[in-house]
């Protein structure tokens, strides 16, 4: 068995569910999370010249996953800017349905920018230090701190009315 195949089998046996949970928090949608995890794993193990070290496989895949998510969200935002020009005005989703099907924290996460969302999940869900978050996302620590601060403000604002209710 090839080394990458063995590393993939080890990762899939232990940590695949954890990666899927992280992806779900990032995307907020199970199908998108499924795609995100698969794409990140393919990217990580398809690089024959830059195969990840066995002890760092999970961190490597997670880093790819975060960056893939941010890239996709950026592309999606470009599409969203143009989408209203194409959408049928009559087909507008009912906000009540969305609220009913999602819990409060997921709604709060949806209000964040992709980078803020990635920072929040890495810092507060994975409990990674700020320096590590900055390194994985390829930004300065100050940027991470600013994103976290803004994200916390937004989340608190979203959660407070809900909790008050």
């Amino acid at each position, binding site marked *: 068995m090839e080394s*990458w*195949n063995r590393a*993939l*089998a080890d990762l*899939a046996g232990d940590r*695949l*569910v954890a990666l*899927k*949970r*992280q*992806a*779900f*928090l990032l995307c907020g949608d*199970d199908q998108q*999370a*499924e795609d995100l*995890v*698969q794409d990140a*794993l*393919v990217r990580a*193990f*398809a*690089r*024959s010249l830059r195969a990840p070290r066995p002890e760092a496989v999970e961190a490597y895949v997670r880093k790819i996953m975060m960056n893939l998510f941010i890239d996709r969200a950026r592309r999606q935002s470009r599409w969203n800017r143009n989408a209203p020009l194409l959408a049928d005005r009559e087909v507008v989703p009912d906000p009540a349905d969305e609220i009913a099907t999602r*819990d*409060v*924290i*997921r709604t709060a*996460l949806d209000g964040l920018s992709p980078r803020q969302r990635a920072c*929040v*999940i890495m810092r*507060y*869900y994975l*409990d990674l230090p700020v320096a590590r978050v900055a390194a994985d996302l390829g930004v300065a620590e100050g940027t991470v701190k600013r994103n976290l601060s803004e994200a*916390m403000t937004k*989340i*608190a604002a979203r*959660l*407070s009315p809900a*909790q008050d209710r």
Partner: protein
Amino acid sequence: MPLTEQELHDQLEKAADQALPPRFTVADLSSRIRRRRTRQAAALTACLAVVAAAAVAIPVALAGHAPLVVGQPGTTLPGSAKLGPPRAEESAPAPRLRPVVFTVTVNGQRPSLAATAQPKPPKGCGRTPADPCPATLGPGFAVRPGERLSIRIAVTIPVRARIAGLWLGISDGTFGWNDSGPVGLQPILARIRSGLEPGRRTFLLSWTVPDGTTAGTTLWLAASWDGMLPVADPAGSHQLTSGSFSALVTVFVRR
């Protein structure tokens, strides 16, 4: 009430619990990864092939523009007797010397000498830079002592060349040059010091191989000249050539 980090962590954990277990299998993922690795390997191989082709093609292309050494002092080989019309590579646009072309016939025949009959290089050659050994003996004639040779040498001087002097004679392999002219031509069969215009000249000469010449001796029918040769660049500039020695054909003395 401000949101604490621990509260946020707990709420994120609860939200993550809503994720369904992965539906894809490791086998699916492996086949996808394998396909992608195969594509990448093919692309890498193609890139390496392109780089290798460029690494070969570029030096070859550059080598095609190297200056031609024909006509430079001490570098002309005996094979220069076969020089005919300018070859395609000599008409390339890079700066190149257009050589003085010599065409030799002896007793009405073009020089020919079987490879197995090639004589040895002259004794003593190669001891000094002014006395190089010919790289190859080239085409020639097998002659006998006392034999009379009727030699016809056609000299083609390229356009814009300025030939101040021309010497034709027999050399025993001692090639050289001094202020009064060439050294090593003995005897000199023709000497032109009036200067030669571009064009074709024909010289009819005769020489009798000395009776005392021992079998196995190698001699050369040689030409020496000085002047300037044109450089085949668009500006048509000239390159000064103080003197040049060309061994035209090999004369191999046999029994």
